[in-house]
């Protein structure tokens, strides 16, 4: 059979090992040209891991300026910014792998929500000595509590967001409604949503829904559900370390979702399949006139939606007239991962720069992302802008989730109960009680 192969082909094939070795050598040597020499010197090196959106580069001059100033002014310390590409979950995965191997950066920019699990794994170190007391004192009250545990502070918030109601001002006007008032109630929200639920082409089916609410079974939907739960008087979903899901507030908050779809008919009955991205897209393409979303979505909608210029925000409504709403505040902050005190102190100048009012105002101007500092909201940029005032009001009355609310088991259980309810398999009390029972049983076994 060997003889059947064409002679020229045989010759070519004999060259395969040689060609493979040559290719390999070429590639390895080309790749090795990219290697950078090791830095020498006796400086203390502090490596700070940053997601792309906080990485100092020419795309974010306000950040680059502060970063460079801090590096210049911190003598004897080489502060190295290390980029962690990828999405939010990739950053956590990478960090966990690095710490599991006993390696990794000295400091990192982390989601505030990760604090309980990072503390449980012993990854976060206290930051009290790395940050001047004035900075801690200047944080929004809800954040001051969220970053502390047993008297020690573990994350310095840098960049935050708040959940709001986003709406299309042109559709509100078209429906003959005034802009939503600063303080409004569930009832008023439903009135608006009903007027904005329209069969535009007259074919008998709704093609513009009044309100989009994410209720797919995932963490993001859970976070969007928390403001309703808190506003209805809920506090935690645990009591004395035990799951307590079937509370009156949780039952009412879950019933509220059902009512939106089946009683008020202002949102699709398939909301259980809609995640945050679907709701965002729905508002962007005109499927929803209002939606629950994050303050950061406004700038994205301006860019990606043909109706972007018409997007406005309103506060989360209160359960009744005269009561206050409680929305969710979360975001990113710097956390210390090294136990070496000299490294902790070395980043003090950098953190002071990043969390200075001047830097934070500049960041808001450039990116529209909110500041964790209370004093920033006294600046004209917020005081003179109606949107700025709404955002400050939301931040003032909002809260950050605590350890009990962030437990992955609770998040999963609430998600499962919500699916049961919205698919019509159970009423809220039954679904929440079953999940509560399941959690208690597994806690007993575990």
């Amino acid at each position, binding site marked *: 059979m060997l003889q059947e192969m064409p002679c020229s*082909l045989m010759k070519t*094939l004999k060259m395969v090992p040689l060609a493979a070795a040559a290719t390999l050598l070429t590639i390895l040597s080309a790749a090795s040209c990219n290697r950078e020499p*090791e830095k020498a010197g006796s400086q203390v090196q502090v490596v700070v891991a940053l997601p792309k959106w906080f990485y100092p580069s020419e795309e974010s001059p306000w950040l680059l300026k502060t970063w460079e100033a801090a590096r210049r002014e911190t003598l004897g310390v080489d502060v190295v910014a290390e980029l962690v590409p990828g999405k939010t979950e990739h950053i956590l*995965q990478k960090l966990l*792998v690095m710490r599991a191997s006993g*390696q990794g950066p000295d400091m990192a920019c982390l989601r505030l929500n990760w604090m309980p699990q990072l503390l449980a794994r012993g990854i976060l170190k206290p930051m009290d000595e790395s940050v001047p007391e004035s900075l801690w004192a200047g944080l929004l009250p809800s954040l001051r509590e969220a970053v502390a545990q047993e008297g020690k502070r573990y994350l310095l918030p840098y960049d935050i967001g708040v959940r709001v109601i986003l709406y299309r001002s042109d559709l509100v006007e078209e429906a003959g409604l005034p802009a939503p008032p600063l303080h409004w109630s569930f009832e008023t929200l439903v009135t608006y949503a009903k007027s904005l639920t329209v069969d535009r082409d007259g074919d008998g089916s709704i093609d513009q829904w009044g309100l989009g609410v994410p209720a797919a079974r995932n963490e993001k939907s859970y976070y969007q559900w928390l403001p309703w739960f808190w506003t209805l008087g809920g506090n935690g979903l645990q009591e004395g370390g035990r799951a307590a899901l079937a509370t009156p507030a949780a039952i009412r908050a879950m019933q509220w979702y059902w009512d939106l779809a089946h009683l008020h008919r202002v949102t699709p009955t398939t909301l259980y399949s809609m995640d945050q991205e679907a709701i965002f897209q729905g508002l962007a393409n005109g499927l929803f006139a209002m939606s629950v979303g994050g303050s950061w979505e406004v700038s994205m909608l301006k860019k990606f939606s043909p109706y972007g210029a018409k997007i406005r925000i309103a506060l989360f409504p209160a359960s009744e007239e005269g009561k206050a709403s409680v929305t969710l505040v979360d975001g990113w902050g710097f956390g210390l991962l090294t136990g070496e005190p000299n490294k902790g102190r070395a980043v003090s100048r950098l953190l002071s720069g990043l969390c200075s009012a001047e830097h934070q105002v500049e960041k808001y101007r450039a990116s529209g992302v909110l500041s964790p500092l209370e004093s920033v909201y006294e600046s004209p940029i917020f005081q003179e802008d109606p949107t700025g005032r709404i955002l400050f009001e939301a931040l003032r009355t909002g809260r950050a989730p605590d350890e009990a609310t962030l437990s992955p088991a609770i998040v999963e259980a609430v998600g499962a109960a919500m699916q049961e309810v919205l698919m019509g398999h159970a009423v809220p009390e039954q679904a929440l009680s079953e999940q509560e029972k399941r959690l208690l049983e597994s806690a007993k076994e575990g």
Partner: protein
Amino acid sequence: MKRVLTFLLIGALTLFSLGPILWAVLASLKPDQEVLRVSARWFFGPFTLDHHRAVLSDLRVHRYLANSFLVALGSSALATLLGAMAAFGMGRYRFKGRSFLLGLVLLIHLLPNLVSMAALYRFVVSLKLLNSLVGLVLVKGAGLSLAIWLLKGYFESLPKEYEEMAQVDGSGSLGIFFRIILPLRIKGVLVTGLFLFAQSWKSFFLPLLMITRVEKMPLPLGLFQYMGEHGFEVGRVCALSVISLLPVLVLLAGLNRLGWQRLRPGG
């Protein structure tokens, strides 16, 4: 009737698998504010090459492509060569511990990525291979398990007589492998190489772990330069994704042109 049903089923499956690619191609050709629109107009409406132009004029993208190419070609060549040799040894020779070794290779392949990553990361750090494309080539190239399992059976199916004849002619094991087995089974080896190339080309988590510098990033990491915390530049990400498909397609077409059909297995 059966034929029609079969065609319909195949058509539906093809549409289902090509759907996301078609969406990415169309989205890469839509202006930003049209990408999220839901209507029939989406398929016909205004098209633009702006995203492709923007991506191709971004010098970082050239770097990502070059890095990806180096890593994919280097690691697939290394893994294919070493994997083929290992597969030949394990497939053609009987020795003590052979089954255990084969089982171990399979076990390593089945191990969840995250489990082995911590140890691998420590290893990479101790060898100072972080932010090194050589490191990435070596680590990816050391993933031989797939090549071994793909090629072992392929080599085993070749009649023993070829080796025996070569042995009579005085060839050693390496000679038999390079002069007899490899030419006779080159098609399978090339397919395995191509498969490993494609795998390395889209590899994400290992580069995520090993690379932090923009100038060293391969394409899958580079894509994230167009993404923010809460969203991404849909058009540009889709344009870059479409562009990233091209090298694999070109490679396939090239192999075809180089006489793919003539490389029939012998024996």
